[in-house]
């Protein structure tokens, strides 16, 4: 019809097109349904169940905070929570200090070096956590390179036990978190226009002054993203403290998992993991508010 009556086609064709487009638009919106159903059934519902279980007390009917009271009265849980949060803050700070210079170096590097470093970062990101922790087990072991070096230099007479300690866990968590810090900071550095720091330079600022007053403040979104991610990764660490730590250096995820796997106490394990999640989100919320305040001060 379009070919036969070119002159009279404008209006019906437009109507047909717009109807089809409207149909397409709602059709496209429906593509969300499979993912939504999947996530509702296999993620939201089980999590709501977990939350519900944590609010049940075997000795009382209905909703009760009994599990939480008992968990928060346990000295072991409190000590573990304190250790988890302390090592998480510490590892996030160290990760930031180690990662920022790498991201900074990346934007100044040539294309080949930059690609090589980014691939190393990506391989670290994707390499099995078990494999990476195993690497640290070897590095820090009694017969490992660090002990060998310290003994050869005469700093220690005999190898020192470094594995199965808080320090070993800290080192491995920093190693695990670094790629998650490098990439967002690099992302925010890439978006910076060279003209911003060129202007500072032309006006006579030293490289360090430029870095401190121009570049670092503008990369705060990347730093914020990296810090948030690394802190969440660290607080929920499970495999790393399991492999490099001792029972006395356990993280919250470990005692929550043990409640379910060893004690078969799902409600208590649920309460512990809910407390961990709540603490993580609360600290990140405070951090977000602080960043907004300081961010406004910078503007």
């Amino acid at each position, binding site marked *: 019809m379009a070919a036969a009556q070119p002159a009279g086609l404008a209006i019906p064709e437009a109507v047909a097109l717009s109807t089809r487009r409207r149909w397409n638009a709602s059709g*496209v919106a429906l593509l969300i349904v499979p993912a939504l159903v999947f996530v509702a059934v296999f993620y939201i519902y089980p999590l709501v169940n977990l939350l519900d279980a944590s609010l049940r007390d075997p000795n009382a009917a209905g909703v009760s905070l009994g599990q939480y009271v008992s968990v928060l009265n346990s000295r072991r849980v409190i000590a573990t929570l304190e250790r988890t949060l302390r090592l998480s803050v510490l590892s996030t700070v160290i990760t930031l200090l180690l990662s920022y210079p790498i991201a900074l170096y990346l934007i100044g590097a040539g294309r080949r070096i930059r690609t090589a470093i980014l691939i190393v970062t990506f391989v670290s990101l994707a390499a099995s956590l078990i*494999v990476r922790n195993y690497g640290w087990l070897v590095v820090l072991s009694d017969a490992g390179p660090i002990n060998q070096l310290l003994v050869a230099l005469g700093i220690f007479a005999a190898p020192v036990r470094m594995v199965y300690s808080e320090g070993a866990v800290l080192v491995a968590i920093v190693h695990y978190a670094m790629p998650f810090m490098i990439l967002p900071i690099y992302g925010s550095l890439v978006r910076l226009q060279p003209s911003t720091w060129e202007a500072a330079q032309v006006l006579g600022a030293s490289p360090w002054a430029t870095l401190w007053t121009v570049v670092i403040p503008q990369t705060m979104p990347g730093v914020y993203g990296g810090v948030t991610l690394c802190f969440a990764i660290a607080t929920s660490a499970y495999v790393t403290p399991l*492999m490099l730590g001792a029972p006395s250096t356990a993280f919250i995820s470990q005692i929550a998992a043990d409640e379910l796997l060893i004690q078969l106490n799902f409600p208590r394990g649920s309460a512990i993991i809910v407390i961990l999640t709540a603490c993580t989100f609360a600290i990140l919320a405070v951090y977000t508010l602080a960043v907004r305040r300081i961010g406004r001060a910078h503007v």
Partner: protein
Amino acid sequence: MFEARSYRIVTGGLAGLGLAFLVFPVLVTITVSFEASNFISFPPTGLSTRWYFQIGSITRIAEATLNSIQVALVSAVLATSLGGLAAMALVRSRIPLGGAVAAVLASPVSLPMVAIGMALIQFFIAIGIAFSWWSLVIGHVVLVIAYPLRTITSALLLAEPSQEQAARSLGAAPFTVFRTVTLAQIAPGVVSGFLFAFLISFDNYPISLFLVRGTLTTMPIELFNHINQNLDPIPAAFSTIYIVVLSGLIALAEKRYRIISLAIPR
């Protein structure tokens, strides 16, 4: 800013330190994998490749690796399909509360994995499919769906809609437009999302720990058990192969699809 000599020396030095920290354990692992004796030591007491030939003889690790590859493949296909369709809907149409929906779909990444594992195993026991192969896959899809969702969303935002309009106005059917134009445009997002979903599923320990039992097992679980119970260099040989294959895969995907630029947060 990059010309001043003191600046370049200091940032270069600090960056070198950080990178050395990042690669050091990997280099040590590769070195000790060539140990000749039965126990790990550094530097190796003698060089040999015999541990590489022994990996296959540890049947549990070999079988678990095969199973993990299957689980990761199916999980990545499912996650890429579900995540890709969701990304299409979120980018190409106005969904009520679209931002909230996207946040929920992306949230499994930021929850403690132990929480997801605990919640899922209770649920699977309740509906009677606990410790089955498919329940393991479902657990992994929940965890990895966020990655293809994010990479395909960024690919769709970068895509040029005018090419689709051109194809449509030339009379192509919607599915043909999708297959020949849209898919070609978002290929890097699909590939990197799939790759990440695969790798994260392949590597998962804390969720699998709750979902496996008996003969149903995965590579990380068996590798962990082996490391815990033995001091031989087999895990080092296994790790070396893993890292070499992974580096090849990532370098290839970067060369062909520029996946790195897509995965860098904006």
